[in-house]
């Protein structure tokens, strides 16, 4: 446990350091007000720390719920598609059509059905993530060696048992990979999900700071997204221990 923690802080430190290095480089290279100095941004962050906390909490909650829903829905679908090639042949054309759609263009639909509140924001995030999860889980489950399936058939495992004892442990690394991708996309999408009718959320913070041309505030928000992402990523990395 202690080792894991010290690892976490070491890599957090490394992450922040290299992030700052890139930032300073850009700052010096661009010499433009659109890229504020890390120091000015740091001071800004300190000034609005309570507010920042609220923004972070609001965004984290939305992301967390959306991720949870996406895994709850996407995981079973992905597994089913991999187990029943027929269903895959039937459904994957639709998936392939829906996947590349810019979900943000469907805001009207989300608003129409679910209003302006949190629910439609979470659903927007969900709709972006869930297809990723489905496709990565499906692709992962497809690479399970045929031999392994044979063992389960040998023991006359029911479908549910095959999922429980073979597929879930076998695709655990794929689930982690799909979570990584999903978190990245979810965080980047906050930016669109939170650009209407909200008072809290990092996406909202960044966007409104941008409109105000308050670049230090904007970069404070961006840094928080990066930090939030980093922490979520490390949490996922630490789950790798449960992988074989």
């Amino acid at each position, binding site marked *: 446990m202690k080792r894991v923690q010290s690892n976490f802080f070491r890599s957090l430190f490394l992450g922040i350091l290299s992030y700052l290095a890139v930032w300073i480089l850009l700052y010096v290279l661009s010499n433009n007000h659109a890229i504020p100095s890390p120091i000015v941004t740091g001071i800004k962050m300190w000034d609005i720390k309570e507010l920042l906390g609220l923004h972070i909490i609001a965004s984290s909650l939305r992301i967390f719920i959306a991720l949870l829903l996406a895994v709850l829905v996407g995981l079973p679908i992905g597994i089913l598609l991999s187990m029943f090639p027929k269903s895959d042949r039937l459904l994957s054309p639709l998936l392939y059509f829906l996947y590349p759609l810019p979900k943000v263009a469907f805001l009207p639909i989300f608003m129409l059905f679910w209003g302006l509140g949190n629910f439609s924001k979470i659903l927007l995030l969900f709709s972006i993530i869930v297809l990723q999860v489905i496709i990565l889980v499906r692709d992962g489950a497809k690479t399970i060696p045929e*031999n*392994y399936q*044979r*063992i389960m*058939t*040998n*023991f*006359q*495992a*029911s479908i549910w*048992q095959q999922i429980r*004892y*073979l597929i879930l*442990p*076998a695709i*655990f690394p794929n689930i982690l990979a799909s979570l990584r991708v999903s978190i990245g996309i979810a965080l980047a999408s906050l930016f669109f999900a939170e650009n209407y009718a909200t008072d809290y959320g990092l996406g909202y913070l960044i966007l409104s700071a941008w409109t105000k041309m308050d670049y230090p505030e904007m970069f404070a928000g961006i840094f928080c997204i990066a930090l939030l992402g980093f922490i979520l990523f490390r949490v996922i990395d630490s789950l790798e221990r449960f*992988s*074989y």
Partner: protein
Amino acid sequence: MSIIIKNLNFIYEKNQIFQNTDFQFDDNKIYTLLGPSGIGKSTLFDLLTGFKKPQSGTVDYQNVQRSEILTVFQNNQIFPWLTVSEALALPLKINKVSKGQTGSRVKRLLKQFGLEALAHKRPHALSGGQLQRVAIAQGLTLDPKFLLLDEPTSSLDQEAKEEIQDRLIEEQHTRKSTMIIITHDIEEAAYLGQEIILVTNQRLQKIANPTFNKNNRRQALEFYEFCIQLRKQVRQL
């Protein structure tokens, strides 16, 4: 209780493995299968369990369920994420055996197969022979009416081999089940087989029916004579 093969035809692409093959495996017996590498012994097992479907002909189960037939595969596949005791518990879990029973059964098998010290190891940390013993033990956790073993002792030293052979005979005896064992070891075929079958010529062929005294065969001269004779017989075909 028997598995009956009738007029079986099986072809991989252009490679005819069985042609109009008939055979019947009865209950309460150990069959040993001999035959050159690549002739179709493992394929036969897949046909018996229905994992592969013949192009024509039938495999019928009489008074036996598909769920009462179990294979121990040639490659000793154990899921890499399971420890030895988890691997032994898996078939029991799947068959919804109670936790208590599972625990005691796994314990007994670990002991019988000398795997106690390895109970918490994963497959990658096992030697070839250890892995093979785990695979056999896994096949014995349930009480299959038909147990198909594909070269179950190929990676074992002589002593371990003999131990496992005796273990198998005892298990068969107490359970009154049927075992079908593929082997390349003539002595093993002779020692274990109540019927010895040769797989060749796209057919299954009974070639011997050892009748010598069951106890202490390994010391009996009679046994070695039989082996030499069997070896000659196999070679001639």
